[in-house]
């Protein structure tokens, strides 16, 4: 059964058909959730919530890219959760020691004492990318994830995010620029990766 038939059956309330769509898209949805949320437990919750929400709202699906439709749901779910956490933080974002006192440097995520060489030694390119993605502002991360990692075109991305095409275009350019700058922290790793990418092309 093709995707369209599965969607039609799902719209009639057939959970089995919807589960076949779940199996086809769960890695994509989880990847998006993980990259937006930055932690596996939150990504797991967001993915589950996404598929429940998608099943409940599938009657509102009116064609187009089903993948984009799912990505819109998961992205919204993730940002809703992030906003909720900002409003009601349950865990202090400031790292604390065993006595509950805040650790001096709040920028513990970015170890400024670490040289690019040490970073390159410690990290693989994938971790570097994930790291840079996590450090992008939300509005840029959202766009670059959809375009460069999920492979949506500008129009689909515009539909998913609800932003105009021009905004998508400019935010993508700035996101790429920032990613490029970020990856320079990884020095030789980046250089070798660039070489690898060029050679593999």
């Amino acid at each position, binding site marked *: 059964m093709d995707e369209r038939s599965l969607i039609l059956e799902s719209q*009639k*309330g*057939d*959970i089995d058909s*919807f*589960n076949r769509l*779940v*199996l086809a898209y*769960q*890695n*994509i*949805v*989880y*990847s998006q959730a*993980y*990259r937006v949320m930055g932690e*596996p437990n939150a990504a*797991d919750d967001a*993915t*589950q*919530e996404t*598929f*429940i*929400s998608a*099943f*409940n709202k599938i*009657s509102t699906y009116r064609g187009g890219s089903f993948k984009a439709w799912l990505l819109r749901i998961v992205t919204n779910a993730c940002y809703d959760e992030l906003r909720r956490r900002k409003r009601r933080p349950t865990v202090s974002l400031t790292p604390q020691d065993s006595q509950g006192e805040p650790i001096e440097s709040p920028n513990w995520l970015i170890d400024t004492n670490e040289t690019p060489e040490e970073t390159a030694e410690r990290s693989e*390119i*994938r971790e570097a*990318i994930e790291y840079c993605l996590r450090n992008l502002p939300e509005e840029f991360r959202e766009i*670059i994830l959809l*375009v*460069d*990692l999920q*492979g949506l*075109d*500008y129009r689909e991305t515009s539909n998913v995010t609800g932003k105009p095409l021009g905004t998508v*275009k*400019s935010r*993508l*350019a*700035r996101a*790429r*620029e920032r*990613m*490029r700058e970020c*990856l*320079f922290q990884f020095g030789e790793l980046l250089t070798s*990766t*660039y070489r690898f*990418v*060029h050679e593999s*092309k």
Partner: protein
Amino acid sequence: MMNGDISPEEWEELSALLDDQLSSKEKKGLDSRLQQSPQLRSALSELQTLRSLLRIQPGIRAPRNYLLTADTEGIRTRRRQGSLFFPVLSFTAAVAFLMFVFVFVSDLFLGGSQVIQRNEVMEEQAEFQLMEKALPESAASDEAVGEIGEAQAVPLEPVEGDLEMMEKGTEEFDRAQLDARAPEPQPKVETPVSEPGEELLKNEPYLIGYLISNRMVLRLLEIFLVFVAFSSGVGAFYFYQKRG
């Protein structure tokens, strides 16, 4: 690899060029600038590499399956198409059938009583007609009886014919006299008496019309109920099959 002197607009153009989102005019303009600026070419190359790098990143594998069941919390299980129609139609069919049986049985009883009533009416009518026929004859017989009385009261005087008859013989004369004058034996007539049946007879056409119209209504109701029961039953069966 630093491209600090590239403006945000140029970054945007380079990014759009990679995604083939520039118009031909914009593309021509950028191509000419790329030929003139090594920094711009370097930036384009870096962006191209970054884009390729991001696009070859494998997706993150989901740690588990996210399959849903009807018991999954938050699931709003929708009724499948037709599942609502099935109970409604089957209920309608059952009610219509029961009503049909009730009306049919009532019709049978009413029909029986109507036949009895109509028979009674017919009998009364026949009796009434007989009476109507009998009344003028009775009046005539009364007159005859009166004449006979007068004839008996006045002494008989022989007429010419009588004399001839008398000559022929007394017996024949007597018989002829009796045949001619004596009143014929009449059936016993009873004077009609006003009874309850009379009222029924008077209203008989209306009563029959009323009963017939009642029966017509019942028949129509029966046909309607059979139709509803049958069509609802067929509909219910269809949706039952569709529901699987």
